[in-house]
């Protein structure tokens, strides 16, 4: 019962984050919304694992969290340097 309530709350959180990703006027709203959706998905995986009596889903949730962090860093680095790799190019700094 507790886990079901947590799952519903997490679904609501993800829905609100998606709404922000669609509305969001600035880049950072959308980046943060995507990060929130990823975090919500990680938590939802953990809760679903306990809901179905299979706590080994936690490992997958941890891997998702890792991917989520890397993706957010990639997006932010893209907006800081303009491209992924050559940060020392210097021809366009903060876009």
């Amino acid at each position: 019962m507790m886990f079901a309530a947590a799952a519903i709350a997490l679904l609501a959180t993800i829905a609100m984050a998606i709404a922000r990703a669609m509305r969001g006027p600035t880049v950072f709203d959308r980046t943060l919304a995507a990060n929130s959706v990823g975090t919500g998905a990680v938590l939802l995986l953990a809760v679903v694992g306990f809901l179905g009596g299979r706590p080994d889903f936690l490992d997958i949730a941890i891997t998702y969290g890792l991917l989520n962090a890397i993706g957010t860093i990639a997006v932010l680095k893209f907006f800081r340097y303009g491209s992924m790799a050559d940060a020392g190019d210097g021809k366009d700094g903060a876009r």
Partner: protein
Amino acid sequence: MALLTMMVVATFGILRLGNLFAVVILGGIYSFLMATVLVVLDAVDVAMTEASVGAGISTVLMLGTLYLTKVEEAAPVRRSILPLLIALGVGAVLAYGTFDFPPFGVAEAPIHQHVVPRYLAKSVEETMVPNVVTAVLASYRGYDTLGETTVIFTAGIGVLLLLRGGRKGAGARGSKEGGA
């Protein structure tokens, strides 16, 4: 289910929004939701691939593409109704095809009758691999997996050659013009 509803919402957002950065972000969100749905459906390996390729690599590649183009979507030259009709027709045919499927997870489904019992019974003693999925992919379908890996490796080499060749050619041309 709520996750599928949110995927539909994200899809309509992708269709309607003109800001390509928002579209890329929504694509990543869509992939994360898809991966969660796949985990709920117990397809953990597919979900892991979807999360790493769909939400991770392809978002980064799309951002790299976005750097080369404009952020706003160009207005379409003309709107035509035919592609929408074709897509809806194909979707309807596919949905009609699913009506003949056996119910999800039933043990009497044909896919669980053919070779699966033999795999489950014999895979450890035949291949010495403890995981049945790994045994099927790497041993029973070894040639298939080898072919897939070859295709991906060739594609990667081709992309690398294209990118490298373009840069080196541009540099050589620039130096020649500089000398002349």
